[in-house]
Structure formats: structure tokens, C-alpha cells
């Protein structure tokens, strides 16, 4: 079974080390704007959490991409952007309901989490263990499903089947 990036918001202290590690590994510079994982902060509630691509099964970025530049890696399950095909049109940015694809200012191409070929660097550098890379258990899958369901209500396709 493939591993997923599992987020435990309870452990996140908003240090944003994951962002720096990600951007350094991917672009050669510590620039949070280029990070593919982003920490969001609710200051009033002192609640912080990293957010990152869910590597959707039914991935609207991939289905919508007019250059067919986004494909699923069968080994890691990551959705990968082919830089030679990507034109930077931002259709993926516009269609991702989770806001997890953006066009890099550095390359002009789409940028998203690729699971670092199955060994994500953000996980290694997270000092509190808020980001884990593991086979998701039933509880985590349930949480993911709930998240997805919450947002499926707002997905571009929003399939409603008549019973």
C-alpha cells in the first residue's frame, strides 16, 4: 500500500521549516513562496496546520490540464507535472479545489507536491512530527474522506447520482 503525507495539526507550531526545506530541495533557495507545502495560521485560535496536495484519485488538475502535463506516478501515487509539456496556463491552479497547485515564479511552470519520489523532505525536517509519511490507517482515511466529502460538495464535477 502506498504511503500518504499525514498531517497532525495538533503538533504544528507554525515554524514553517517544512516550507523552507521544500523550497530549498526543489528550487535551491529558501523561499516560502516556492514551497509546495504551506502552513496556514489561525492566529486568533492559535491553530496552525501545513497543507499540501492530496494526490487525488480523481484529480481535476490532471483531467483538466489542456497540455496533458499532469499524470499519476504509479509507484508513489503522486501527481507529477511534466515540465516539458506544462505551459504555465494556470488551469490547474484555477480548478484545484484545495488550492495546491501554483505557477512557480522561478520556472513559469506548474508547481505542486511530488512526494519527493517517495521520500518527502518536509517530513524529515518537521521538528515536531506534525508531518508524517505513512500508510494511512482507517482513522486517518476516515478523516481524509471527511475532508474530501466536505470539499466534494464544492468540487468542479460534483457528481450526484440518483438512487
Amino acid at each position, binding site marked *: 500500500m502506498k504511503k500518504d503525507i499525514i498531517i497532525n495539526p495538533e503538533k504544528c507550531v507554525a515554524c514553517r521549516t517544512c516550507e523552507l526545506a521544500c523550497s530549498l530541495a526543489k528550487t535551491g533557495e529558501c523561499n516560502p513562496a516556492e514551497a509546495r507545502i*504551506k502552513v496556514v*495560521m489561525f492566529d486568533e485560535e492559535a491553530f496552525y496546520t501545513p497543507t499540501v496536495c492530496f494526490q487525488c484519485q480523481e484529480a481535476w488538475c490532471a483531467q483538466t490540464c489542456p497540455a496533458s502535463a499532469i499524470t499519476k506516478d504509479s509507484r508513489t501515487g503522486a501527481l507529477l507535472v511534466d515540465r516539458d509539456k506544462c505551459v504555465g496556463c*494556470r488551469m490547474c491552479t*484555477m480548478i484545484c479545489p*484545495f*488550492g495546491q497547485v501554483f505557477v512557480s515564479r522561478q520556472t513559469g511552470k506548474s508547481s505542486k507536491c511530488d512526494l519527493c519520489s517517495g521520500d518527502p523532505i518536509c517530513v524529515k525536517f518537521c521538528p515536531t512530527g506534525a508531518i508524517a509519511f505513512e500508510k494511512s490507517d482507517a482513522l486517518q482515511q476516515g478523516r481524509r474522506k471527511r475532508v474530501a466529502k466536505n470539499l466534494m*460538495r464544492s468540487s468542479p464535477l460534483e*457528481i450526484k447520482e440518483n438512487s
Partner: protein
Amino acid sequence: MAKKRHVIIGNGAAGISAAEALRAEDPQASITVVSDEPHAAYSKVLLHYYIDSQIPEKGLFIRSDQFYRELRIETVLGAKVEAIRPDEQRISLDDGTQIAFDTLLIATGSLPHVPPVDGLESAGVSTMWTLADARGIRRVLKNSRAGIVIGGSFVGMQALDTLARRGVRVSVVDVAERIMPNILDRQGSEVLRSFLADRGVAFFLGVQSDRIRVSDGRKKKLALTDGREISADICILAAGARPNIGFAANTPLRINRGVVVDEYLQSNYPNIFAAGDVAEVFDRLSGERRVFGLWSTAVAQGAIAGMNMAGKKVAYPGGIDINTTAVLGLPVMTIGRTNADESAENITVKIFQDPGKRIYRKFILKDEKMVGAILMGHVDDGGLIGSLIRSEAACDPLQSRYSMGSFRHRLNYVIR
């Protein structure tokens, strides 16, 4: 049970998406794709990247010949559909061929609107709609220094961008008083126009093109109705599009602007569906019928039509107008209703602007729910804003985090 015969007219975003969904649902059925263009499926929305050589021609093609073989999709390419005969369950092609169907998808896309200007048949005057157009434009561009784009809407901006990137001095002409009037508000149009004017683009707005004359072989002069003249080597027509309903004469299919379909993308014949630029569907935000000329809606509609052709019953929730482009490096994205009547009591508008950074962001809320956004300069949260609109979550527009920050916050709050 006999194998079902599914026929899809159109080899674009909707047609391909439908064929894939059909094959996934029905491994046995026969699937035939008919197209008047002779190539495998390619992306019309990428043509301008090809014209200025950001991608090679093969970068336009989104499916290979192998794709059709693997999915066992039969193709009839380079053939125009002359008539659809719903009662006889067959279509006729221009070469006389008849193709019988059990279910039919009309995914013929759209055609560029050609404005009433004299002299459009001159060499070097072209629409920017098909691969053949793009090849022609590339040839003319080799010897072009000045160009005219007739039409200041979406495709016009892309034409402007691709000409300017090739070092061509561009003039944009439109009868409308402002650019991208359908998706930008007045202020947004002006932000974009002044950004482009600062970079050397000339605008002739609120004036009609009258006629094109050719002198010394290839130099063209476009005369405007107010007496002014613009010289150019190349002229691109980008005056909007209309559904491609050329097959529609004498058909009992219900056609208004496009092929009228219900929430299952079914026409007035239960075994005939329509999807993409040719389909007249519901607008999710206004509830009214309209045609969406968008790649992304075509993909979604195609997938749903394909499932329904295979016998499922999947409803299309209605389209939302979403657009993304970048003009001379300035990203522009619009989501939802961007031209709401701002004097209405339940409409709130919030604008965040940083002219120095070329950022203009406008949010439109109706009854405290997000219904539309115009994003220029900073567009990374466009997908999340789309989610906010679709989920009809209540928003507080006065929060500072809505300014340059990201909607990620709010949405993750919803997720949690």
C-alpha cells in the same frame, strides 16, 4: 445484449473526455469519434503558445494515435457532419457516409465569430481558432513588424500576447469601450489596459473596424469607422465565438444559442447528448441557461455526458464561469459572477489594489456569500475561491486576510 454503438461528434475537450468516461463505464461498447479536423485531439487553448514557439507543434496534441487504439475508439477524421437524423438514429457525413448510433454526443465546439469587415479574405488576415490558422499565422509572422488584433476579449488578449512576444507592435481594436468587458469590471479593464499600454500596445476602443485594404502585396491598412487608419502586416480576428451548430438545419433537435440540454446533458431526444462549447446548459450561479466556451467546463461536461451515455444517471450541477490567462506576464483570473449589479442591496464588493505591484483583486459577495472574484497579479488562490463559491460558505469580506493573503485559511477552517 448487443453491443451499444456510441457516436461522438467532436474530437476536442468534451469529446475526448466523454470517450474516456464511456470506455471506463462500458468496456464492450463500440465508440466512434467523428471530427472535421484531420488530426488527433489537440488543445485549441494552447495555440497561442505554439504561435510564439513556447511549445513545439507536437506539444499541442493531447492524445496520441495509440490512445485511440488502446481505448478501441474508432475515428472518422476530416469528415464534416451534414445532418443529424434523430428519428433514424444516424448521422450523415459530407462524403455520403451514414453512421448509425444508439447514443450520440454532440461535442462540435464553437466557431469564431467573424465581424462584418470588408477585406477579411486578404492574405495575412486570420482567425486564431484551429491548428491550420496557427500554422498560417506563424508563416505570416516571420515577416511581420506590426499587427492588429480585432477584438479585445479573451482570445484577443491571447493573440496580443503571442504577437507581442514575437516582437510585433500590436494594436487592439474593439467596438466595446473597454477590454475583456464580459469578465472584467470597468476598473479591472482599465488596470489591464494601462498595464499593456505602458508596454507599447495601442488601443482603439469604442470604434468599429470598417475595411481592410492591401497595398504593395502584403502591407495592410485597416480603416476604422471614425476615419483613422492602422497599418499592419498581420491581422488576427478575435471577435468572440458561437456554438458550432452547422449541422442544425432541418433538425428536430431543440436548439437555441446552442443545443439545449437538461441537467443530464440530454437533448430533447433521450439518446442524444451535448457537451462543451456547443451545449446550452445551466449557469450554476444565475440558474439561467447559457453556453460556456471554456475548456474546463467542456472536460467536466464531457465526462458526465459519457457516463450518462453508458446508462448512468449523473447530473451536471451547472457551470461556473472561470477564466485564466496571462497577458505580457500579468496573470488574470476570473471566477464566477464578476459583473454583478453593485448597487443591489445584498451585493458587497471588496477591492484590494497595489498598483506598484500590479495587483488588482476584487471580490463580489451576495448575501455574504462569495459569488465572484477578479484576480490580477496574484492568482494562486483562485482554486480555493472557486471552492468557496461552489460551497456557498458564508464569508466576511472585511477581514484583512482576504486582501493579499490567501483563502487557504478560510477553506481549511471549513475542512477542519
